[in-house]
């Protein structure tokens, strides 16, 4: 886009909605944007961008979760997501209003849409981020607490407020912090479940800006024949306070009966490693990890899970991790707050009994 970086102001959040419901990650991103805005300048506003048809009511939710402004992009052709239509109206709105930062949820829609917009706008995009900073001082704090990075070359007094986007790569083996210093807007997709929503503030409002949308049938080259919701059991891993996860150590699909009883007892939900999903013991909806769901419950019980890096990538930010494994050298113990070496079939029933005492 333009090379005059100072022309670009404010933080936009693509407030992804499906069938008239806002995705949780959009509210999480509004919360995160509020924190970043404060670190940029007092004038920086948090703007939610709602794209769809007949969705003006959703603006209220955006304001109550922290947005200062809502841009409404409505058109009958925007009712359901299509890459062509959404990319066109978003790119055109960005050209007019010049946001400094644009954040998208790293959902199957966000990760389809954002790269297309980035290419058209000739700007950078960082994929699937798990941490964002603008302040160098805060980045140093983050790095010291969570990483092996040598921070001595970073200046905590620096006035640089460029977006520092941290993401896992190489299957979670490496973390990289990416910047887009020369182009605007700075764009990122952010993994659902890692940022925090603000407390909802009932009655909080802001300015709604209706954006003029130009769209015709010829602009949309894909035709949606059908949207099918699969009748999966509802597992809300991202909202759960307690997760009881089972791994290959269960020995077979029937092991999930014990895990389910355990979860029922402690008021949790059932999670799984990929090994069990690949074996067909449980549905993919339960999978925790890099190619499953990222979770951060208050307590995560890992039962018969070895602790592969791809599994850790999805659960290591849990407040408390309890690992039950019969191998004392299992890597899961490296991240566990509480380690129990033993047979899960003997240990879990005892924990269930002790729970109520």
């Amino acid at each position, binding site marked *: 886009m333009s090379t005059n970086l100072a022309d670009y102001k404010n933080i936009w959040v693509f407030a992804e909605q499906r069938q008239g419901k806002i995705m949780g990650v959009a509210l999480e991103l509004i919360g995160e944007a509020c924190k970043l805005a404060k670190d940029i300048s007092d004038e920086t506003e948090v703007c939610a961008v709602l794209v769809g048809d007949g969705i003006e009511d959703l603006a209220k939710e955006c304001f109550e979760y922290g947005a200062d402004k809502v841009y409404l992009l409505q058109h009958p052709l925007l009712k359901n997501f299509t890459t062509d239509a959404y990319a066109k109206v978003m790119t055109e709105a960005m050209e007019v209003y010049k946001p400094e930062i644009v954040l998208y949820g790293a*959902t199957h829609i966000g990760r389809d849409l954002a790269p297309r917009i980035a*290419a058209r706008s000739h700007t950078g995009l960082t994929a699937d981020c798990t941490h964002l900073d603008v302040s160098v001082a805060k980045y140093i704090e983050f790095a010291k607490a969570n990483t092996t990075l040598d921070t001595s070359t970073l200046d905590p007094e620096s006035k640089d407020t460029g977006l520092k986007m941290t993401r896992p790569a190489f299957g979670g083996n490496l973390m990289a912090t990416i910047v887009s210093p020369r182009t605007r807007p700075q764009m990122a997709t952010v993994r659902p479940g890692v940022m925090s929503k603000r407390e909802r503030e009932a009655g909080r409002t802001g300015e709604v800006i209706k954006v003029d949308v130009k769209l015709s049938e010829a602009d949309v080259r894909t*035709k949606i024949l059908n949207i099918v919701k699969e009748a999966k059991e509802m597992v809300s891993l991202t909202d759960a306070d307690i997760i009881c996860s089972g791994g290959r150590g269960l020995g077979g699909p029937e092991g999930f009966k014990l895990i389910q009883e355990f979860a029922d007892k402690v008021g949790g939900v059932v999670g799984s490693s990929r090994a069990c999903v690949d074996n067909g013991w449980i549905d993919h909806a339960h999978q925790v990890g890099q190619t499953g769901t990222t979770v951060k419950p208050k307590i995560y019980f890992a039962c018969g899970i070895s602790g592969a890096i791809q599994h850790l990538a999805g659960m290591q930010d849990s407040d408390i*991790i309890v690992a039950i494994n019969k191998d004392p050298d299992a890597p899961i113990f490296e991240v566990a707050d509480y380690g129990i070496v033993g047979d899960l079939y003997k240990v879990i029933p005892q924990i269930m009994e002790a729970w109520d005492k």
Partner: protein
Amino acid sequence: MKVIVCAKQVPDTNEIKINPETGSLIRDGVPSILNPDDANALEEALKLKDMYPDTHITVVSMGPPQAQDMLFECLAMGADEAILLSDRAVGGSDTYATSNAISAVIDKYKKEFGDFDIIFGGRQAIDGDTAQVGPQIAEKQHLPQVTYVVDFKLSDDKKTVTVKRQLEDGYEEIEVKTPCMLTCTKELNQPRYMSMKGIFNKDKKITVWSAADCEVDLSVVGLKASPTNVYRSFTPRPKGKGVMVAGDTEAEIAANLIASFKEKHII
């Protein structure tokens, strides 16, 4: 039909270990492989060729000269030819610059061989892990795209594609006219092995192009033309090791665990 498959050679990230002293990646001895999703992309093209034997499959890649090993594997699986763009000028490209380079290869392909019908790519490469290159190639080629493809059908007149696109809680069925760009997932199919006939077929060739050969605009590729830069990179620090819960019996261990939870107000 003319089909292009985008394939990347990647390190097998399963085999990567971290040096506990330095916290850096140990890449020595890590095998290079065909990116898993790209094997699914190639398989879907090969299924078309099984059905319509006059289908011509060209595998396109950008990477170092060693990437020819991976392309050889693609030919042995059944692709007809392969093109590798290999040039220092495209090194250090981010996804924006990578897609510019690959798009230039495709433009050159069009000049030499005419129009294509479908580009199959992988959804995501297991090293960079961004899943951005597919949609960005589509943008530069002005093609409609469908990502996260889990099912693929071609109409009898070969002009319309019907695919299932995976969503978090189900899928969409989408119809799109060729030419188009599709990014493939592992759920789409089971990639075949290389065949003996494929391995020993000497007629198939890998063409290596320099940036000049495919007339890449040097101002839009490489490190300098990349809008994103790596600011810092590091390995995640394993969270401090916790405690092993003491106790002689399972009952004792469980009681100690719960007692500690209560003491720390965890429950």
